[in-house]
């Protein structure tokens, strides 16, 4: 194992200028962590619902509070970003889209697409379906 520790290392990440490709790559991880936290709340919410009307009302009040809305908004943005960038990853897995210009273009498409889908989902969800 000793030789493993003395292997040469590539320069530390901080020496590189941030680029759209690298920033979106770390954002994919960050949104994955946000969604992990979201899954904890989803399961807690399901447990509350399974516990009966009283617990469900409390869970709904928490989700409907301003803090709940902030979290739900962050969760939805992270969800759409991770979904779209994940599809971008699946195309890379099939060998498509590695050219720098294409990677830059699909990267910006993911950012704009995530913002647009989040906006559409909240507008439709709050005004047309009228659930909130």
């Amino acid at each position, binding site marked *: 194992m000793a030789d493993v520790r003395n292997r040469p290392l590539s320069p530390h990440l901080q020496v590189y200028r941030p680029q759209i490709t690298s920033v979106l790559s770390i954002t994919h991880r960050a949104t994955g962590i946000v969604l992990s936290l979201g*899954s904890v709340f989803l*399961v807690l919410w399901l447990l509350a619902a399974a516990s009966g*009307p009283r617990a469900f009302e409390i869970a709904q009040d928490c989700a409907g509070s301003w803090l709940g809305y902030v979290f739900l908004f962050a969760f939805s943005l992270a969800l759409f970003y991770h979904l779209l960038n994940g599809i971008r*990853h699946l195309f890379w897995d099939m060998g498509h889209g590695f050219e720098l210009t294409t990677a830059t273009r699909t990267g910006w498409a993911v950012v704009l697409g995530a913002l647009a889908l989040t906006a559409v989902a909240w507008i*439709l*969800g709050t005004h047309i379906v009228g*659930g909130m």
Partner: protein
Amino acid sequence: MASKKRRLGPAHTGTGHFWHQRLTAIALIPLTLFFVGLLPNLAGATYAEFVTLMKFPVTPIALALLVGVGLWHMKLGLQTIIEDYIHSEGCKVAAQICMTFATVLLGVAGLVALVMLAA
């Protein structure tokens, strides 16, 4: 021999993590879209409305798949993050154990809740 020496496991299982991450990712595309469509109906729903929604088999089935496949996907992602950022071998193993146990706990809790709601 080389794989045994480096404790990386048998050579033919090397693509398992990669493959399962992609498999769950593909499954999560329709499941996520279903969940997004369901959310406005869940938000602000009364208990009676929610119970009615859960009596349609498609709702608990899709939510159970979302919880199961989603948490599996989450486990694979968090495993990579722990491998990349925790460098002490002891902490790394401890973190993987805690993360795996927490994932299984969340999965079982979520599925039991769904079974209770659908029953």
